[in-house]
């Protein structure tokens, strides 16, 4: 039986996916979507955060078959023409150093801003509590989320392929 799901707006069908495969291994090794990172591999760091039916999950903890018939968005699905406003805000705010945590941070931020257009600092901290960054010290990341909220509010450009 093939694993069929929607990834960044396109329907894909994959054969020979073992029952114990993670969604992360399918994204990276089968689909070549290397934007989603494996940090800790055990759900502590959030570098592998993707959206499953719009909700952030750790792809390293998600059985690949849980995606069957559902919709997955990764960092590759955000940018359509040029960067997504959340990506722009991270660049402009200096919220990226080594960049390894950034895809996960951006997916958590994107999910937060979909839920709540104007999050306060506590909302942001709670939404990003599962995403670790060892470089920036988080101040610039908080700035980036606030800047992204302002940008998205201005542009209303929150349409993502399949999202």
């Amino acid at each position, binding site marked *: 039986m093939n694993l069929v799901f929607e990834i960044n707006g396109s329907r894909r069908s994959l054969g020979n996916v073992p029952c114990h495969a993670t969604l992360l291994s399918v994204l990276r090794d089968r689909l070549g979507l290397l934007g989603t990172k494996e940090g800790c*591999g055990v759900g502590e760091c959030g570098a592998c955060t993707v959206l499953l039916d719009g909700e*952030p999950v750790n792809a390293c903890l998600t059985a690949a078959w849980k995606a069957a018939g559902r919709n997955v968005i990764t960092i590759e699905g955000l940018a359509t023409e040029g960067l997504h406003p959340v990506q722009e805000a991270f660049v402009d705010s200096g919220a990226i150093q080594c960049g390894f945590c950034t895809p996960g941070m951006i997916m958590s931020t994107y999910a937060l801003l979909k839920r709540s257009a104007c999050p306060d600092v506590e909302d942001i901290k709670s939404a990003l509590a599962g995403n670790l960054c060892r470089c920036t010290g988080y101040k610039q990341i908080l700035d980036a989320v606030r800047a992204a909220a302002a940008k998205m509010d201005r542009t209303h450009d929150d349409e993502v392929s399949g999202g």
Partner: protein
Amino acid sequence: MTTKYLAARNVEEALAGLDDGAKVLAGGTDLMVHLRRLRLCGAGLPEYLVDVTGVPELNRLDMDADKPFLGAGVTFRRLERDAAVARRYPLLAQAGAVVGSLQIRNLATIGGNVANASPAADGLTALAALGARAEVVSSNGVRHIPLEELIIGPNTTCLVPGDLIVGFKLDRPPEGSAQRFYKVGRRRAVVIARMNLAVSLDREMTDPRLVLGACFPSPRRMTEVERLLASETPGPELWREAGRMAAEQFVQVCGWRSSAPYKVPAVANLVSRTLESTWAELGVAG
């Protein structure tokens, strides 16, 4: 090697899969970590998983019924956000909100938390305070097992292959109860509890509940402390005495370990302060 994954649509399908040798997969936040370890060691991986999170009975959340029921497949995120849970069982909603991260709470289920039976599990402390009785089905029929009997030690339950936890029946707290769940860890989020505490009090102290978790091998109500709370006059002295008694029982059960000089005062203060703040919420004069 061909493996098999069954997304069960009902209990019968799930049980058929289990009888066929499948392992249960709920949210996977513990199981996938375990499988990763097996993969890294080159150990054998399961060939058949049955995902039970799509079974309607496991997603039933019936908080306002005469016999409240919490489906085993309900996620911590749902516990955190559900209005009926917040109204009926605030300690369950508070516990749901402090498990792992948002990403984990979107996957992890209360039934998986029980089956994994970590001594530090936040869900177990909350369920024990609510007198949870697990509804367990297998192809041999249905059993109702009190949580404190289901979990027989650290990461150990009395369940056998073929068993499936469908959900939990919960006690109804007396009208006008106040409840608190509190967790102590190294940091505020994405942390495994060093200790956690669930408290439920009512104005008449007809049925006080107190469960201290992550301090004992398995979840348990502190019945002696509960009896003390029911028999003495509520107030600062009683809260202090209850904290002292809880700390004493902690040492009795677990012995004087290297962490005891830190944990004993922490238990005493956690218990007395939480009782004080829970009682204050009831707004009893005097």
